[in-house]
């Protein structure tokens, strides 16, 4: 691979310390610190309003921070915005394509903002259109694309300057399950060739699939940090039994489940029984004649980690 820029492999490419953003009296990002290594795939996981997008925008320096420090490729985005953003590919949460332009023109126009010459952009646009699987639509106006196609175009657009660091704010929102998996595969392969990924999501499976390491954010604060597996090991049991007794009976049964579980979570529609051996726990529950309406044994996920840390579910 050709050498790129001042960035030294292995060095952290993003370092945030005590990062803060205050809107009025709302501390949207409340003193968070993290560091992302080159080539890593880093996740920001949290519910609506947690401060994920706000954090992302402060990485690129498109949002002024209230406090703390930020270094991207060794530079402060607040002072060296253009230099920092020349390293980045940004996929914003909300698409902002020009609907009046064609798919191809959207890519070319965007590439020009990086000072890239037309000779480069002509071939690059075709490669990116192939990446986004939009070959048939290359000459169509962007208005004519479906939501998922627009999303793919936005992601392709972010690659026009061959960024070393890709910021993806909820990249797969609006994609169907198959398109999501295709995209994960593509992102995974980009990571393999050395692109650093920063992904925000509130999809558990996305975080588990894509991220080497992640931070769980709530109310602008970091609740936990680690690899998906380590987080699950640390904050949850190996397995979970989900049992439903109907809204009326749920409360009544809880007492009789206490000693079956390492821990219980009572949700409005179901009870989560945390245990290292789900089958055994379920056998015990039915053995006591409790007869749940439905039951399900599954492995613990990040959802459980989040529930444990915040007392709330991530997707409602």
């Amino acid at each position, binding site marked *: *691979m*050709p050498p*790129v*820029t*001042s960035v030294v492999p292995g060095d952290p490419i993003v370092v945030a310390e005590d990062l803060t953003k205050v809107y009025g009296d709302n501390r949207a990002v409340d003193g968070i610190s993290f560091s992302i290594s080159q080539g890593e795939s880093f996740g920001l996981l949290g519910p609506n309003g947690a401060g994920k997008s706000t954090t992302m925008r402060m990485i*690129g320096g*498109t*949002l*002024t921070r209230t406090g703390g420090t930020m270094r991207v*490729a060794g530079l402060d985005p607040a002072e*060296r*915005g*253009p*230099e920092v*953003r*020349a*390293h*980045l590919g*940004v996929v*914003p949460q*909300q698409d*902002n*394509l*020009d*609907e*009046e*332009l064609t798919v191809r*023109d959207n890519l070319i*126009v*965007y590439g*020009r*903002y*990086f*000072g*890239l010459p037309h000779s*480069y952009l002509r071939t*690059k646009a075709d*490669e*990116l259109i*192939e*990446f986004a699987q939009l070959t048939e639509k290359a000459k169509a106006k962007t208005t004519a694309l479906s939501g998922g196609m627009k999303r793919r175009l936005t992601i392709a657009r972010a*690659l026009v*300057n*061959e960024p*070393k660091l890709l910021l993806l704010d909820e990249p797969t929102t609006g994609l169907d399950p198959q398109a999501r998996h295709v995209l994960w595969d*593509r992102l995974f*392969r*980009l990571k*393999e*060739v*050395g*692109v650093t990924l920063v992904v925000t999501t509130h999809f558990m499976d996305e975080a588990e699939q894509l991220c080497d390491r992640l931070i769980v954010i709530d109310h602008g604060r970091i609740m936990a940090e680690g690899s998906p597996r380590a987080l699950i090991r640390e904050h949850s049991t190996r397995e979970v039994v989900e049992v439903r007794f109907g809204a009326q009976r749920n409360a009544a049964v809880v007492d009789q489940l206490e000693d079956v579980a390492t821990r219980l979570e009572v949700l409005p529609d179901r009870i989560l029984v945390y245990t290292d051996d789900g089958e055994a726990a379920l056998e015990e529950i039915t053995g006591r004649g409790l007869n749940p309406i439905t039951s399900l044994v599954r492995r613990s996920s990040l959802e459980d980690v989040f529930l444990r840390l915040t007392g709330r579910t991530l997707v409602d």
Partner: protein
Amino acid sequence: MQDLQRLAASGRVPAPEVMAARARRWGWWYYVEYWLRTAKAWFQSILIYMVGEPLLYLVALGVGLGTLVDNGVGTVDGVPYLVFVAPALLISTVVMSTGGELTYPVMAGFKWDRLYYGPHATPVTPAQIATGHLIGVLIRFVVQSLIFWAIMVAFDAVPRGVLVSALVIPIGVLSAAAFGALLQAYASTLQDEGYQFAFVQRFVIMPMFLFAGTFFPLSAMPVYLHWVGWISPVWHGTQLARQVTYGAVEPAWLTVVHVLFLLALTVVGVLWARRSYTRRMGS
């Protein structure tokens, strides 16, 4: 399967420092390029408008009303009414066109289509986006002034000579910049749906058209209304335009005032817009 190694690092992209340096220098122009590309889509309809409007105005006011005026009072400012009114119509129509170009499209950039936020994530800065948008619009006004001027020549409304009268083109563009930059800056401060634009249209742009010496000399109005002309870029632009098309006579100091006033408004508007764009996009 696509070669992602090639997609991610073809070796054909310059170092980030180089891209950033280019954008710092030329970012405003990249936005102009984009603006021109979008303008291509509606260029045909705008062209019809840019040709049709001068024709309508010159026939109705210059020839139609002009015949009446010339038969009544003889000449205005020493020239036929068509010659008197034509340069003023050029300036007025160009300045009035800012009302369409630098109001709702600015709202669309910030709010409706969020078009400004695409380049905002690149090395191009909000200040460059502001200036690029203005310059794109001014390029349109170059074309518009040029067409108007050509039609004036065809109507034989430039007694000072074709060559000198071509100066109405830069004068028209400067007048539009003086008002347009301020309008763009103001539009960038609005958070709601832009209801204020109707007000601006009726109570700022229309009075400038009617009372800034367009149809009759400022001196024909009572003194207590002269200020409308003095604060209006349309009046200053019109007075300059009249000098180059038919040689209207004015003291030299006043000519200097016209030019300085238009330049000053432009500079204030551009600086205000750059600042306002930077603030708004960074928050």
